[in-house]
């Protein structure tokens, strides 16, 4: 039941619980309890809204920053990651396999803000060896949802 609930609300956390119970062939008490439990256990870590900010007329710059760092004795990458993810404008930090170590995503109002963050906050961290910053130009698909307009269905209205 948990997996089914998670799979559903991952795409639509706004669903009415009684409706979700019907869709999953369960009852509302079970579904509500499971969700409350999973919130407590931090399996469900939060509820987000997927927003097309561009359409909302809001200027936003999203940057992906590749960061190469020197891991620190006894703490590996965790301490450096923490120093980075504590900045509120940082939206995600991932440890990555391959030619660099951390992938940091950053949301800001302007390009200048991003470059200031990189120059003033990120690069001066002593363990940081180098950074490479990429700006997102257009979001086609985000969190499994295609953001560009889809063609209308051409199914005939009635077929046997």
């Amino acid at each position, binding site marked *: 039941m948990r997996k089914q609930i998670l799979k559903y609300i991952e795409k639509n956390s706004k669903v009415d619980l009684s409706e979700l119970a*019907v*869709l999953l062939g369960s009852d509302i008490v079970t579904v509500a309890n499971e969700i409350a439990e999973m919130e407590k256990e931090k399996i469900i870590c939060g509820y987000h809204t997927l927003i097309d900010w561009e359409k909302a007329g809001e200027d936003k710059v999203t940057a992906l920053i590749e960061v190469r760092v020197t891991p620190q004795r006894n703490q590996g990458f965790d301490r450096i990651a923490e120093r980075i993810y504590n900045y509120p404008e940082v939206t995600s930090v991932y440890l990555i396999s391959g030619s660099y170590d951390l992938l940091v995503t950053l949301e800001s109002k302007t390009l200048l803000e991003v470059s200031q963050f990189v120059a003033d906050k990120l690069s001066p961290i002593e363990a940081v060896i180098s950074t490479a910053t990429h700006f997102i130009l257009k979001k086609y698909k985000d969190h499994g949802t295609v953001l560009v307009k889809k063609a209308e269905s051409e199914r005939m*209205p009635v077929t*046997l």
Partner: protein
Amino acid sequence: MRNPLAKKVVGIQPSGIRKFFDIVSEMPDAISLGVGEPDFDTPWRIREEGIYTLEKGKTFYTSNSGLKELKVEICKYLKRKVNVEYNFNNEVIVTVGGSEGIDIALRAMLDPGDEVLIPQPSYVSYLPCTILADGVPVTIPLQEKNEFKLTAEELEAAITPRTKVLVMPFPNNPTGSIMTKEDLQPIVNLVKKYDLFVISDEIYSELSYQGEHVSIASFEGMKERTILINGFSKGFAMTGWRLGYACGPKEIIEQMVKIHQFAIMCAPTNSQYAAVEALRNCEREVQEMREAYNQRRRFLMNEFKRLHIQCFEPFGAFYVFPCIKEFGMTSEEFAMRFLEEEKVAVVPGTAFGDCGEGFLRISYAYSIEELKVAFERLERFITRLRAEK
């Protein structure tokens, strides 16, 4: 000038609700619950494979019975899904949709006067295809109290010395009814007792919501009596690709290949390559679609309960078949008024046989959001009808 037409063809009645369909298609603002095909796009990896094979110029005929690669995958798939083993070499034919398979199976098996048992309500092509193959269609009206399953009593009562073929349309369009292993066993016994053959139309096999789909061909001694029809339209959301297949004893398949060879040559090459990808790598996509249909099915059953509309719970395909007898109208009258007053199209049960009278076919190949809007209108409509009474 003399009459250019064959009596046999002219005598076949066009679907009686053609007029209703025409009205629907001229109402662009109507919402429809009348569709018999998935709302999902064909999974991208299948479409991409189609594009790739076009780029590669794989656009020639395949062998008459189909691409070897595809036939091999079909056999693996059937072994995996319904535990029946076919030889790809002479027990499989790839057809233009499941519907061609039905047509050529009947043509390969019927002599003039042979009777074909057709349980109804069911898909509309069995009856005319039987007539076109010079057979005699004998319909078996299924009953709601049996959840529209075929019972041994109903079957035995319809068998005559001329009976040759039984059509088994499960999971069923339009009722959504399925036949479980326990339901099939008594049917199997009779088929053997009376030395019949079965054309088992399993096109909705992937859309079964109560355990795995069971094929009648998997019963002991039934593979040699069964033409198993399946295809890619429903489970893989590939209706427009026109691709299906038939499997059975090589003596029958051989004759079917002959008809297919002269009438069709081969199924579309591009679709066949795409279907290889479907069978190899799309288990997950099919599973996701099945889950979505199942959620909608539960949603609709709950809505019928809420609205106090009688509807047995179906476990297959993407249809529900509610009973509207309480409103004292024919299915067609109900459908017409519902369309005119609330602009929602549903298919009268009578489109699938006279015994569909008093029922409607409602398709759930629609999103929950669309279904919600349609059911708000249905609620308004039946509240009005009940008040009128």
